[in-house]
């Protein structure tokens, strides 16, 4: 198995793990970690693809760079929302947030 294939396969495995995590985990931070793992998985496939040909292809690199920033942005937004919910939850001792 070539290096590129190996990382491709590993990427897909990671993707599966991440997806499982997203579905199964309940804690918001774990879910987000899982999402980020899925992101890393996709990046891995992309970067492995970049090594597909003879020369390293810069376009997947650019894509991954963009992807990383987007992932951080998404994570931050989710965390912020979770914090907001938590803040509101402190005020009202009621049903647990779902």
């Amino acid at each position, binding site marked *: 198995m070539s290096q590129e294939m190996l990382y491709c396969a590993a990427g897909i495995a990671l993707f599966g793990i991440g997806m499982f995590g997203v579905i*199964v985990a309940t804690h918001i931070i774990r879910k987000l970690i899982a999402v980020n793992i899925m992101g890393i998985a996709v990046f891995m496939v992309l970067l492995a693809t970049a090594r597909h040909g003879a020369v390293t292809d810069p376009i997947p690199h*650019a894509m991954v760079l963009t992807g990383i920033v987007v992932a951080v942005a998404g994570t*931050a937004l989710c965390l912020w929302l979770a914090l907001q919910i938590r803040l509101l939850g402190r005020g009202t001792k009621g049903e647990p947030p779902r």
Partner: protein
Amino acid sequence: MFLKLEFKENQATSGELSTTTRVLLAIAIVALGTSLIYAILSAGKAPPDLAAQVAEKLDLSGVGNPVTAVLLNFRSYDTLLEVAVLLVVAVAIMPPRLSSSAGKRFLFVNDTHNPHVPDPILLNLLKWLVPLAILLGGYLLWTGAYSPGGAFQAAAVIAGAGVALSLGGRHKFAWEISGVRLASSLGLLVFVTVAATNAFITGTTLQYPIDHASTLILLVETFTTVSIATILLLLFAQLKSLADPPGEMHQ
């Protein structure tokens, strides 16, 4: 999947699904993944990818680093939208109120009320680290044109410095909010302006005139770096200090 969202610390890693369901789920995912891997393995020879084209056109791009060329010239539209994505999150998270008592300091004020005594070693370290990080950021920005590095990396390093400063305990964030708004949208503004100017000069949006390409790209990169660094720092700051009652954030 998303019905139960927990925020408090809990021990269980998987609260809502029964073991059977989880096992079935795992089987399904493994099956999907296996077939995907099979599909990849069974794929034929490598397609003609774009590496050659990039190499060919690199000279026309105004930068030497192919990744930067792709990011800021060939596919600069993606980058433009990406900065906009960051702006989305920045705006979403941005504290709504103006900080009236912040003394018009842009980013940090000395946090004299902090009862925790900061670690002096850390403080000393920070004294060196922060300027160094900013310097490193500038270097990365500059060198991005020819070797690995660029706006994102530079911004990340600078933001990292800010994070470290805030973790040091002596300083806390104090946003002059209209300044932050300006800073976070500055990169985008410059980007759009350059794109529009390009349209006037070359007739095509985002097409750099070959002679000025490197200059313009550096310009865009610089302002983008400022914006991204601000936004990243803002994200951290907001997540870190959100628990403060809104009105008392800055005294």
